């Protein structure tokens, strides 16, 4: 009986030391940034037929509105969801999830849809994928065009 108590006391001490030193950690973290837009809603959009008002009604407010060349515009819908483990011993050795999300990075790290509208705000095309890839090819107005 006495030995068992001593053993338990030693385990307690070790556990307390391990906890207070924080040299070994295991972390499971999940981050959700915004709800994804309805894929069914996007599938119902018809380029050349639907206008900006119809798209807003169907999908709600976008995350971004971008100006394109020639008075055309683009709407971007984005969301982000990630989960993973990270394990560390004094210094982090494994990290399964990227660092904490910054709203400013939403366009860079999130997946979503971009709707392209012409100068009359009529839907031209719908594209999906990572926003950073979709944002690149969009032709923005030059300073001369804005004058």
């Amino acid at each position, binding site marked *: 009986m006495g030995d068992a108590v001593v053993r338990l006391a030693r385990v307690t001490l070790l556990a307390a030391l391990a906890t207070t030193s924080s040299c070994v950690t295991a972390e499971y*973290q999940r*981050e959700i*940034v915004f*709800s994804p837009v309805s894929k069914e809603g996007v599938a119902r959009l018809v380029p050349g037929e639907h206008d*900006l008002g119809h798209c*807003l009604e169907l999908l709600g*407010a976008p995350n971004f*509105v971008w100006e394109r060349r020639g*008075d055309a515009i683009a709407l971007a819908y984005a969301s982000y969801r990630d989960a993973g483990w990270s394990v560390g011993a004094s210094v982090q050795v494994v990290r399964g999830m990227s660092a904490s999300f910054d*709203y400013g990075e939403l366009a860079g790290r999130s997946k979503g849809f971009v709707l392209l509208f012409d100068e009359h705000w009529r839907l031209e095309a719908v594209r999906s994928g990572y926003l950073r890839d979709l944002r690149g090819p969009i032709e923005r107005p030059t300073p001369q065009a804005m004058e």
Partner: protein
Amino acid sequence: MKRLALLLLCLPLGGCFLTRDTTNVPIEPERFAKLEPGVTTATQALELLGGPVEVVQLGRRSAWLYEHQRTKRSGLFLFVFTALNTDTQQDRLWLFFDENDVLRHAGATLDAKSAEWVMPWSDSHE
């Protein structure tokens, strides 16, 4: 004695926290329901909703953004294991004005209230 040792063992092992961050005031549906495309002017929108957080110039036209964001974070500590969940949801309202500053289109998404305090393995916004 055994119970005391067990209690001492458990004391440093467990813990949890809940936090909430809020950005801007919530968008009130009753207010933007008063907006009428083709009728409401930019001045009237300003009086009704206040200043937008962002204005995007679209040639001679413009788009205004109103935004309210809520982040709920929950964490559980158990010995050397930590579980963290962060849920960020947003209310957004975009107003599109023509070259005469008359409202043409409005689109709203009201999700901020759906942010949850949950553990990272639970279903959330699936």
